[in-house]
């Protein structure tokens, strides 16, 4: 078991196996090529993992295809349910080291990553519970015909994961995928393969038949090998809208595989005049700064009613200035995941200043040593046409906009190509329904922001994607009729 030497990091426990997991075995890539996994905390190389190529993807897909008709099929719904319950128990025993590993790998504060991972055993149990409950129907047609529908697995599924909540994304996809009888080829984000490798060990230990779950690490080309593959039946992708388009194109050009996309957002959070300002500031601040702002659902447009605008901005600035940036294993605000994200966020902050938004705080790179740290940044007097109000930043940058009427703010909330989430803070019943019934977003939070539950469907309107994860509908996405 490899441990980190640095005294701050001696709780980081690497997976035993740092190889591709294909057909129940750990193997190097066919080419022998590897790539470094870097921690954004100290910019050090954590380890090297295999660079999977088309040949590795082919091997994995072939194993997953064979596994579809082997012992996995014979297990039936009950067998799948019971194995998934065992996996939940296995992950539950390993929660703490998984949280620390994730945080060190992607810079997300352990105060966020740990509780998210802490939910995963129950998340798996939720999906396990569906395994034996997805029914077809028997419609009534006529005396001459007997008809029924069956829900069947889709087949070999490609799961392409993001780097911001890697293990949560893995389980949110793999849970229903396996519960419904599919097999999987998983490509973790190149930045964050480590918790995926650890879970592969647990999947193996618990006794999933070989080939049911396969893991192939690599960069964009590895993902492309999957999206173009003629023998993958479905791709479930979480990432940027830009790459989401490429996934969909590749699916169309190859075998018309089913596609599910969870993409970006520019989600509005609306604070009405009757809100308690302190509570609202707290909610809005968490809505944008949690996990360094690296969540697809962050409330990145904070609409505040003119009657409380000044007080809100003042308190928000103070709140953001009080946030301490440092090692994610200790502090609530850590580094961004890599240099590309770091450069991008800083550039967008500059654009914000240039376009005339008022910089309330932050805005400069966090100084003092290695690590991709950016200070929590707040812009006020933001207007709808500014770049920072339209483009997804994916960093700790809050934009505050003023509004006057309900009709106006609903219109402005919807004036975006995105539609992932929204929030509203108010005590008034009518404000609640004005926002939740009229804003075009897959999830609307009321007097809270961010919590997702496996029982509830989650996904995007418009260019935030399509398909749902979680809930009965999310489970059905992994079946065909």
């Amino acid at each position, binding site marked *: 078991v490899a441990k980190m030497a640095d005294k701050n990091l001696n709780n980081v426990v690497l997976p035993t196996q740092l190889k591709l997991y294909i057909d129940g075995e750990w193997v190097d890539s066919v080419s022998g090529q590897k790539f470094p996994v870097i921690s954004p905390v100290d910019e050090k190389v954590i380890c090297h993992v295999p660079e999977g190529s088309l040949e590795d993807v082919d091997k994995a897909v072939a194993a997953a295809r064979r596994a579809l008709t082997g012992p996995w099929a014979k297990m039936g719904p009950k067998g799948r349910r019971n194995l998934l319950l065992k996996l939940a128990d296995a992950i539950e025993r390993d929660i703490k080291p998984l949280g620390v590993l994730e945080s060190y790998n992607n810079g997300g504060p352990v105060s966020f990553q740990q509780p998210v991972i802490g939910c995963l055993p129950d998340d798996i149990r939720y999906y396990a*519970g569906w*395994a*034996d409950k997805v029914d077809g129907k028997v419609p009534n047609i006529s005396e001459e015909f007997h008809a029924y529908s069956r829900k069947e697995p889709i087949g070999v599924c490609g799961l392409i994961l993001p780097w911001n909540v890697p293990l949560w994304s893995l389980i949110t996809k793999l849970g229903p995928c396996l519960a419904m009888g599919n097999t999987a080829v998983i490509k973790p984000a190149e930045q964050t393969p480590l918790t995926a490798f650890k879970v592969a060990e647990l999947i193996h230990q618990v006794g999933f038949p070989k080939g049911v779950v396969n893991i192939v690490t690599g960069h964009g080309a590895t993902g492309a090998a999957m999206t173009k593959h003629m023998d993958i039946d479905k791709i479930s992708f979480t990432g940027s809208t830009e790459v989401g388009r490429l996934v969909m194109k590749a699916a169309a050009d190859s075998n018309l595989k089913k596609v599910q996309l969870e993409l970006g957002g520019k989600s509005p959070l609306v604070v009405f005049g009757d809100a308690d300002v302190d509570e609202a500031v707290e909610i809005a601040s968490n809505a944008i700064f949690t996990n360094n702002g690296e969540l697809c659902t962050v409330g990145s447009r904070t609409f505040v009613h003119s009657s409380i605008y000044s007080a809100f901005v003042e308190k928000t600035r103070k709140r953001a200035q009080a946030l301490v940036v440092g090692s994610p294993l200790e502090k609530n605000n850590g580094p961004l995941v890599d240099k590309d994200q770091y450069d991008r966020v800083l550039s967008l902050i500059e654009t914000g200043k240039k376009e005339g938004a008022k910089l309330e705080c932050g805005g400069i790179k966090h100084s003092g040593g290695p690590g991709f740290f950016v200070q929590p940044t707040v812009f006020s007097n933001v207007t709808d046409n500014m770049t920072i109000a339209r483009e997804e930043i994916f960093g700790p940058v809050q934009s505050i906009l003023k509004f006057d009427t309900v009709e106006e703010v609903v219109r402005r909330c919807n004036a975006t190509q995105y539609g992932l989430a929204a929030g509203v803070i108010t005590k008034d019943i009518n404000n609640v329904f004005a926002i939740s019934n009229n804003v075009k977003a897959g999830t609307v939070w009321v007097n809270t922001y961010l919590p997702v539950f496996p029982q509830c469907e989650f996904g995007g309107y418009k260019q935030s994607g399509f398909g749902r994860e979680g809930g009965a509908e999310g489970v059905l996405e992994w079946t065909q009729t």
Partner: protein
Amino acid sequence: MSTEKKYQTKLFINNKFVDAVSGKTFPTINPSTGKVITHVAEGDKEDIDKAVAAARAAFEGWRKTGPVQRSSLLLKLADLIIKNGDELAQLDSMDMGKPFAQAKAIDVYGTADCFRYYAGWADKIHGKTVPVGSNFFCYTKHEPVGVVGQIIPWNFPMPMLAWKLAPALTSGCTVVLKPAEQSPLSALRIGELIAEAGFPPGVVNIVTGYGETAGAAIANHMDIDKVAFTGSTEVGRLIQTAAAQSNLKRVTLELGGKSPLIIFKDANINEAVELGYNAIFFNAGQVCNAGSRLFVQEEIYDEYVQKFVERANKRVVGDPSNHGTEQGPQVDEKQFHRILEYIDIGKKGGATVACGGQRHGNEGFFIQPTLFTNVTDDMRIAKEEIFGPVQTLLKFKTVEEVVARANDTSYGLAAGVATKDLNTALKVVDGLRAGTIWVNNFHTIFSSMPFGGFKTSGIGRELGEYGLAQYSEIKSVMIKLE
């Protein structure tokens, strides 16, 4: 040397084991020997009152307990049942006579599976939002119906307990459960496991006692919101009457049957014989869905009789603790005499005993596997539920005829059909008035498939998603918007 084994024999109320208010106890008897195993607390009306009060007090907290926590407790209970499987199987085998090997392989695993299945439903019981128009927001809530009284039989003590407890608990209800007086021991041991798993006090209460006292107290109780009963049709009527006369508590009933098994001439004869054999002799005939009217198409009738008799004569009847035993004793002296009386009625009515027809051995309540041939539809043995290892064989010609004859009963619990022909199978399936129809199999139970009776075999369904409906009360909410 006699070792006094320690059994849990007290009432389980508020996670504590207590004597009956009256201090009375009743004996539970080993039907293999006729000897008393131990004495168990005899609950009566005052004990039911205490249990209901405990369940009512626990209800608000339990229904507000998150579904994930309820699910987790049910999963823990399932694990504990598997962990203690040998002991539990031994208890039932000794208490009501089923072979230990079957108690372990079928009852223990079926019980754990039922808890695991329903654990998965806890956070999936959905209300709906219903679109009505822009100025109303309408939705439904599925709320737990409340404090439920559950009365279970002795033929499958643990699975019957799971079929009742699991959907009720997953839905957020609290329970007062009365096990059958013939088989109280495994239920009380499971009470210990319920406490061990971490269920809050009062969520499950188990009161052992008799039907006429404790059972009636449940059916008549003014603070029980729903009663679920499995047992005879005769008692089912009493339960429903009491429910109507007290507080209109909701009622579901799983009652008796006289289920037909229809063998067509194109069926594989050996498989069909096996089906007819298992349909009646499983659990010594003590199954509400026993296939106790065996209709065989005339072209294969003689061969069928011959093979059936051969098969039945090989059946190993004896000590249920021996691994080779296929059939143990009947549950008690009362059932034993009742079955022998029916055999007598059959003989006097003019049917032919093709095999069996007598007591087996000299000790305990064992009966030989028995087959009657030359049976006509109007004979009492062809119409009345015997609940013992007594098969009645009837001859038929055509599918229309046999479906009509199969339906000519006040019962409607289950049915079976053996045929390779798709159209015959579907014709029979569509024509029979029965809650479960087995095609080329019999007695198959899945936790996910609903089970229950047409006509006087019962009201409502257990198992599957359908089994949740009886434990929910639907609330419609309509919010007017400006």
